[in-house]
C-alpha cells in the first residue's frame, strides 16, 4: 500500500506544496529548519487545518475536495519531536494507549529497556525516555503510516541505533514509514530512500 499525496498548506509567511508518492518502506525526510518537515507530517496525519488537495492511502481516501477523514480514522500515527506523555497515566498505560496495540509491545519494552519506568507517572520521565516510549507505542500500534519527527533527537547513540533496527523490522509491517532526520547515519541510509524538502516544496 502506498501513500499518494498532492496537497498544499498555505500560511501567512509559508507555503507547503507536496506532490509525493510514498512507497512502502522507510523514507527519510531531510530539510533545513523551517523548510516544512513538521508541517508535512502533520498534514499527512490530519492534524493541520486548511490542507487542500488529495491524499490517498492505498484504496482509502484521506483527503479530497469533498471529504477529510478525521485523524483517528486514518490509521496513521505521528510521533512529534518532543513528545509528552499523559501525566495522569502511568508509563505502562501510556504505552498501551494505542487503540490497536499489538503483542509486540512486550518485546519492544524489553529491547528499549523501558521495564524500570513502567510504574512511573507520565510526567516523571526524561525527554529522551518520553521519546522512546512514544516511538515504541507507535510501533506497537502497527499503523498503516508511521510519521516520526526527529525520532533520534534526544537519544544516546545506543538507543538511536536500536531504534533504526526497530524501524527496519517495523517497515515490514508498517507499510509506509516517514521519518524526519537531519543527517541519517550510514546504517540508517542503507535502508530506505532520502527525500529532500526545500522551502515547503517536496516532490517524489
Amino acid at each position, binding site marked *: 500500500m502506498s501513500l499518494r499525496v498532492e496537497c498544499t498548506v498555505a500560511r501567512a509567511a509559508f507555503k507547503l506544496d507536496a506532490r509525493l508518492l510514498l512507497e512502502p518502506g522507510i523514507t527519510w525526510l531531510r530539510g533545513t529548519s523551517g523548510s516544512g518537515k513538521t508541517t508535512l507530517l502533520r498534514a499527512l*496525519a*490530519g*492534524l493541520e487545518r486548511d490542507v487542500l488537495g488529495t491524499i490517498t492511502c492505498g484504496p482509502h481516501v484521506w483527503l479530497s475536495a469533498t471529504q477529510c477523514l*478525521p*485523524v*483517528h480514522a486514518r*490509521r*496513521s*500515527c*505521528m510521533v*512529534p519531536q518532543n*513528545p*509528552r506523555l*499523559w*501525566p*495522569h497515566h502511568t508509563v505502562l498505560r501510556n504505552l498501551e*494507549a*494505542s*487503540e*490497536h496495540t499489538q503483542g509486540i509491545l512486550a518485546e519492544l519494552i524489553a529491547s528499549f529497556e523501558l521495564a524500570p519506568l513502567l510504574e512511573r507517572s507520565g510526567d516523571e520521565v526524561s525527554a529522551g525516555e518520553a521519546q522512546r516510549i512514544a516511538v515504541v*507505542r*507507535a510501533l506497537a*500500534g502497527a499503523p498503516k503510516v508511521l510519521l516520526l519527527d526527529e525520532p533520534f533527537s534526544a537519544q544516546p547513540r545506543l538507543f538511536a541505533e536500536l531504534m533504526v533496527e526497530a524501524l527496519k523490522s517495523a517497515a515490514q509491517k508498517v507499510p509506509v514509514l516517514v521519518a524526519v532526520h537531519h543527517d541519517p547515519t550510514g546504517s540508517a541510509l542503507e535502508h530506505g530512500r532520502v527525500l529532500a524538502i526545500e522551502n515547503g516544496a517536496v516532490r517524489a
Partner: protein
Amino acid sequence: MSPMALSVLVGLSASFLATTVSLATLFVAQSFRVRVQSAIASIFTLPLVMPPTVLGYYLLVLVGPNTALGRLYESATGHSLAFSRAGVVVAATITALPIVYQALSTALTSVPKEHVENAWVLGHSPLRTLFLVQLPLARTGMLSACTLGFMRAVGDFGATMMFAGSLPGRTQTAALALYDDFLAGDLEGASSRARIMLLMGFVAVFLVGTLRRKSS
C-alpha cells in the same frame, strides 16, 4: 421542603444541567471555526449581562403556560413548567450557564493540545479523547465550574421570581424567602438565612481558589 433545602436541591440540579449542556456544546463546538465558537460563547454569556427579570420574562414568553412549548410540557407531565419546582431549576440553570460555560471552556482549553492530538493519532475518536484525556486533565477546572454554577444557581432571585414565583413550600428558595422575611419585618429570620448563604458562598469561593492554586 424548607426554602434552604430547596435552594440546595435547585443548586445541585442546575449546576449539573448547566455543566452537561455546556460540556456537550463545547465538545461539538471544538470542531468548528473560531468565529463560530465565539458566536456560541457570546450566546451562552448573554444571561450574565441581562437583568435576571429579562431572563424570567423570556422564559415565560418561550415556555410559559400560554405557549406551545408550555402546553406540550403540561400535557406530558400534568402540570405547567412555570411556577413549579422544575421551573425553579430551569430559571437557575439559565442563570448559571454563563459562568459554568466560561469556566469549563477555560478548563478544557488549558489542556495542552499535544495531549489531545496524541489521543487522536493513537486511534481514539474525539468523544473517547474527551473522556480519556480532556476531562481527567481538566478535572480541577471542572470542579470549580460546578461549584461556581451551584452558587450562582442558589443565588438567583430575579429569574426565579419571574418564572417560578415565590410560592412558600413549593417554589420559594432561600433567596426569595429572605426577601419575604424582610418585607414581613422578620429581621431575625432574614438574618439567619443571610448568614447561612454567606457561609456557603465563602466556602465555595475558598474551594474554587484552592482548586485554581492546585491546578496552576
